């Protein structure tokens, strides 16, 4: 059982980072569908730096910067140039996929250096690891996973307990009102789109540095899209995103585990669950009509003061 929970955490971590990144972008009013592309950019740049320098911290910073750079393109096109966010996001996904294949071409089959593997080896937390059930979720993971946990807490505080978080949510809910109250709309949008992209990049880097530490093209394989669904599933809330990512991660390996025990289950059915669950959550959310479960009011609408 603890083996299953530990494996579920490994499957959940890339989803968690990408979901948190997209929550940040969407909360500030930008629907960035380029998650898959930004994850791939983070995956390939993180791997390149890890491979070249053997320095895990540098690899993570580079992965964050790569995801952020992808998001920066998105920000220029959608915030400054006011282009359609959906089209731009999809384009970013295609760009990121090509970018990662191009940059990664010469590294196919190369391994992450031992120094990096060692850094990302599981670390046991004393005492907490002995608690049943919760212990194997909280303890015995790699540094990357713990960073994800910290991120959940930090972002929750930021969103709901700080002035900047309030302003950022105002930008997403009602851009014109936020503008009128003196919030720097362009700055807020840029900052959160880029930061969100950086988190997506880290999610991709988890796959290429920890999950499968040998470079292979397209290591993300659709997880970016699951993250987009997860944002809705989590109703734009970092804490719910944590539970959602854990649930989706657990489900993604549950079918495999049951099969290995010889229990008959269709992998097709298991694979469609995240999407079906998201639809159910959307329907429930829409019916309950609770303000905090709804998407940000001005999500995906370009804002220009002159065109109000």
């Amino acid at each position: 059982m603890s083996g299953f929970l530990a494996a579920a955490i490994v499957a959940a971590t890339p989803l968690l980072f990408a979901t948190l990144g997209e929550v940040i972008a969407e909360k500030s009013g930008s629907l960035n569908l380029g998650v898959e592309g930004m994850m791939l950019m983070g995956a390939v740049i993180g791997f390149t730096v890890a491979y070249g320098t053997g320095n895990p911290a540098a690899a993570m910073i580079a992965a964050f910067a790569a995801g952020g750079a992808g998001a920066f393109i998105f920000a220029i096109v959608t915030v400054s140039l006011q282009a359609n966010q959906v089209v731009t996001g999809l384009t970013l996904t295609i760009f990121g996929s090509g970018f990662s294949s191009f940059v990664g071409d010469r590294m196919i089959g190369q391994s992450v250096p031992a120094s990096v593997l060692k850094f990302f080896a599981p670390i046991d937390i004393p005492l907490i690891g002995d608690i049943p059930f919760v212990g194997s979720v909280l303890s015995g993971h790699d540094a990357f996973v713990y960073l994800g946990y910290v991120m959940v807490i930090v972002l929750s505080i930021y969103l709901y307990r700080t002035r900047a978080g309030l302003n950022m949510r105002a930008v997403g809910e009602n851009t014109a009102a936020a503008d009128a109250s003196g919030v720097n709309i362009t700055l807020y949008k840029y900052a959160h789109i880029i930061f969100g992209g950086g988190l997506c990049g880290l999610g991709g880097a988890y796959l290429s540095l920890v999950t499968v530490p040998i470079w292979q093209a397209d290591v993300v394989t659709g997880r970016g899209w699951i993250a987009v669904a997860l944002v809705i599933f989590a109703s734009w809330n970092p804490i719910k995103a944590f539970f959602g990512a854990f649930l989706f991660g657990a489900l993604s390996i549950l079918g495999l585990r049951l099969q290995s025990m010889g229990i008959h289950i269709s992998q097709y059915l298991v694979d469609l669950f995240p999407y079906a669950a998201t639809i159910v959550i959307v329907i429930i959310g829409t019916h309950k009509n609770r303000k905090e479960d709804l998407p940000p009011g001005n999500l995906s609408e370009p804002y220009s003061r002159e065109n109000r």
Partner: protein
Amino acid sequence: MRKIFPIVLFVIALTVSLAACGSDKDKGDGAAGEKSAEPLTIGFIYIGTVNDGGYTQAQDAGTKAVESHFGDRVKALRLESIDDTNKQAAMDAAKQMIDQGAKVIVGTSFGFGEALNEMANSGDYDDITFLHFSGSYINDTNLGNYFGAMEEPRYLSGIIAGMQTESNKLGYVAAYPYTEVQIGINAFALGAQSVNPDAEVKVVYINSWYDPAKEKEAAEALLSQGCDVITQHADTTGPQLAAAAADKYAIGYNLDNSAVEGLEDAFLTAPIWNHEIFLIPTIQAILDGTWEPESYYGTMADGYIDLAPLTKNVSAEATAKVEEVMTKIKAGEFPIFVGPIKDNAGNVKVPEGQTLDRSGIWKTDYLVEGVTAGE
């Protein structure tokens, strides 16, 4: 101003996607020319990227061998990452390359078959030769297919697994439950049981051909059930990494990964393809004008399929046994599927005294005794 940018962007996106899909206009035989002067243009449709570290990379190794063998007498075009569940995408890819002068279209995935079959028989492309990998479509004039007796190296890899295992549990990470995959699983299981009657094969289907992380997770699930040799019918090194991390053994697929860092102590061997063994003589026949549609089924004797060199991790005993059986297989004295064969529900599928030939093998829709699968 704000209304213009989305439109501009849309137009750019449209142009790019149209360029990628190719257009039907300007169809004609502009590039036909004189046979001697113009190189023969061959269009390859790939399901993945040429550097995917597996299936498509192996296909492209064959293409590269064709290029270096024929030099400037042929010109190879490649379209990568074509969706093989979308007939229109495959047809667009083929048409685009025909527009660029391709006289031969090679579809290197099962799903491209319908598109090639329809085009070959439409009457519009009678001057084009179509070759399809892993399907059964064929006609009398311009459509042939090719594949290999992968059951031979799979059986041999099963012998190794059966002799290396201590737990008698072998893990098999498989893509989808369909004939080609089932044949591989059965051959592997029969090979293992031939040297170790207690060997049991556990199969996990992942519902994908290519997903490094999911393949690794599937292998971890199998390892948690006590499997100590992991093999795969999926395209990445994921399962091998999982086996290496658990200090167990791995048998790959498509590529010899013995030199990959971190796999040195885990990798045993891998069933592999040598596509040039089919492609070079076939292209030569097309160049000579002597080609006729055939349904090629390459064997280990041809060298079309093979087993990657056994590594130091394979015991001397197992190496000797594999060499003994391989010699018989290559001599054509060792059919893989010999009755009695029961399925895993106990029904007799091949009665005593019978041997499955190629068409019999490709009617497989069951898993043999000793195999457990979750689907």
